[in-house]
């Protein structure tokens, strides 16, 4: 195998594909990239057995077709460190790969390409085309609520639900829940739900641009495949049942409050400084058109913030983890928000005052 290209042509593909490669591997070949050179161009693959990313690069001068696996991080680091605009050639010689550019020369160890595991492409059940911007919003509006290493493994990911009318994402760690809905679905699909693992969601989000590029999502029994231009990301799905999210979204809460989102966000930000670093609890006292936020820490330091709100449903006190509230107010983008709650032990619904694509649920904390 031998090919020649300029540094820029391969820089972003190498960085994106290397992002999938885990630093610590059980199988040595998983720290390598699979590079396949054909007269049509190059294909670069990285995988951790759960998530696989393939980049197809055209316009590369392939002098000798062939296949090699090359250490991912080292290759990406070398590539990045080469001078801008440099001409680079990669040659496979016996069990070594040689990278040459100007007066630089690097000899890297390779492993047999037969050892490199590739995801088998199963036929997809559902396919849906969206813009990159739309998919990115579906991920970014809920991603922060995913659980991390929870024993309830099905929470360590994001629910992707496709119906004929909508495409929806839901994430929850059991303490809070986020849901984002795009009113565009796949024709003839009644209701299809899959759980995308945490890592897949993160790599997925890294890949997507904030523009109108077309993105194709294909869902098969065990995989989700996302194709955007030259890149294809395939992630295994989490085998498990996601909780019934509709059941935990409160409806007809007896109390409701409206206020300016940014004012509230700033107030929580300041109050959080003196909340207990471990529990992050804040006490909210709501009375006629006034919300009082109080925080204190083990050093007996205290913060109090008073915020003007629209509220007429009677005095109440409720505690929350302030980080959850800050996350939600940061994810919403409207001027005004509505918080609905029934009592100090039930969940609160936080959403934009006007109809919006995202809603959030946060469980209170008993302080």
């Amino acid at each position, binding site marked *: 195998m031998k090919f020649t290209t300029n540094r820029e042509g391969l820089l972003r593909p190498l960085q994106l594909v290397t992002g999938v490669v885990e630093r610590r591997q059980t199988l040595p070949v998983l720290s390598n990239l699979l590079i396949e050179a054909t007269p049509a161009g190059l294909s670069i693959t990285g995988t951790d057995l759960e998530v696989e990313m393939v980049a197809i690069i055209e316009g590369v001068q392939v002098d000798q077709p062939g296949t090699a696996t090359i250490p991912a991080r080292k290759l990406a680091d070398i590539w990045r460190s080469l001078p801008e605009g440099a001409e680079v050639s990669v040659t496979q010689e016996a069990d070594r790969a040689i990278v040459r550019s100007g007066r630089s020369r690097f000899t890297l160890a390779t492993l047999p390409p037969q050892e490199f595991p590739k995801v088998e492409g199963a036929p997809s059940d559902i396919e849906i085309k969206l813009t990159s911007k739309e998919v990115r919003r579906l991920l970014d509006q809920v991603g922060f609520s995913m*659980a*991390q*290493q*929870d*024993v*309830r493994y099905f929470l360590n990911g994001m629910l992707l639900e496709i119906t004929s009318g909508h495409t929806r994402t839901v994430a*929850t*760690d*059991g*303490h*809070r*829940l986020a849901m984002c809905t795009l009113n565009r679905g796949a024709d003839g699909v009644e209701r299809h739900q899959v759980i995308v693992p945490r890592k897949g969601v993160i790599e997925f989000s890294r890949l997507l641009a904030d523009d109108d590029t077309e993105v194709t999502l294909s869902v098969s029994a065990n995989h989700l495949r996302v194709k955007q231009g030259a890149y294809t990301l395939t992630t295994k799905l989490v085998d498990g049942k996601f*909780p019934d999210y509709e059941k*935990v979204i409160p409806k007809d809460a007896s109390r409701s409050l409206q206020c300016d989102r940014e004012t509230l966000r700033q107030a929580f930000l300041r109050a959080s400084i003196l909340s*207990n670093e*471990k*529990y992050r*609890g804040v006490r909210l006292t709501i009375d006629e058109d006034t919300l009082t936020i109080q925080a204190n820490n*083990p*050093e*007996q*330091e205290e913060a109090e913030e008073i915020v003007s709100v629209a509220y007429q449903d009677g005095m109440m006190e409720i*505690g929350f*983890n302030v980080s959850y509230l800050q996350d939600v107010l940061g994810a919403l983008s409207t001027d005004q928000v509505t918080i609905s709650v029934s009592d100090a*032990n039930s*969940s609160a619904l936080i959403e934009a005052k006007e109809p919006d694509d995202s809603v959030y*649920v946060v*469980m*209170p*904390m*008993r*302080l």
Partner: protein
Amino acid sequence: MTGTHVTSSGASASPPDKNSVGRWSQIIAHADMDAFYASVEQMDDPRLRGRPILVGSTSGRGVVLTASYEARHTGVGSAMPMVKARRLCPQALIVPPRFARYAELSGRIMQAFTDFSPHVEAISLDEAFLEMTGSEHIFGSPEQMANRIREAIHEATGGLTASVGISGTKYVAKVASALNKPDAITVVPPDKAAAWLAPLSISRLWGAGPKTQARLKQLGFHLIGDLAVADPDFLKARLGSLGMHFYALANAQDPRSVARSHRARSLSSDRTLEHDISDPADIRRHLRRSADRVGTRLKKNNYLAGGVRVKLKTTDFQSLTRQRLLNEPSDVADVLYETALSLLPAFASSGPFRLVGLAAHDLIRADGPEQGDLFNSHQQSRELEKTIDALNQRFGKNAVRRARDIDSSTVLGDHASDLDFLR
């Protein structure tokens, strides 16, 4: 008790009361038990009271762990070879140590400290730092704080005495607690600390052993005050970073904050098996039983586990452990068990094993705020476990059991006799 309050010696000294509190930007207490092991022995055995005793092993190479105050005037002290100590103080009684008893009392003392501050750093069984900054309005002036700490120790142990030092840094607080022992309180306001340290011998420098002390004396430093006014560059050139450290201490500067004790508590249930096992199903049954036991003890003692550790011992006595922190602390046996199961694939060996154990580590008190759960997933388990615990408490062990545990009784062995009855 002797109470000492240090103020500057001149007539301009400000009264040691509320005014001085205003100048304390930080308040750190160091509490140190007086002749801990020896005092425990004298408390537990009235015949030892008032007599010189040496706690330590009588065997040939043993050393004195603690000497009672009655013995100390003869010059014996901790870490002295027992042979030498007996020569110096032939009338002393030698008492073998009972570490379990010391640990039990230490636990009560440290527990009592948590009523004073969330930041308690135990540096051994018998001494700890307490971060008291900001608690003046609860406990009063530093002197009152020290008094309350002493009283709490007295009460928690049933009569032991301690010495308490209070100042603005850990170092000065520690020196202060040692200076007027026993049963003393020494309060050193931060702005007087450097002057207070100055006349003390360099043997009071924290971290300077006999060799370093000799070296310091060789360089002409005999008192802490000598070091405080030394040229820092000279100290650095002669003693390296240690020199700078001593220079800072001598000037009553000590940036170290009171750390919460990392002497991580844990609760575990291990069982050495009658027959070695390697079947994953058998391992799971033993873990299930251990998880139930640990869960019961956590709930009874009002603790939450921050993490779970699984221990497997191979037939050639290799101990393998794997552990994992929980997303949120828990006392639910189901959570401990599920977490333990998730650790099993991480073990390189597949057996056979002669011991299976589960430990809850990084324990915290179960009195913090409680974050609600959207799915109530563990709440039901917890209620059920508490009900089972309460029934077994009332009607005897195994009065109520889960059906799944009856099935596994033959494997677990210890329920075998019950099983006959049930059949």
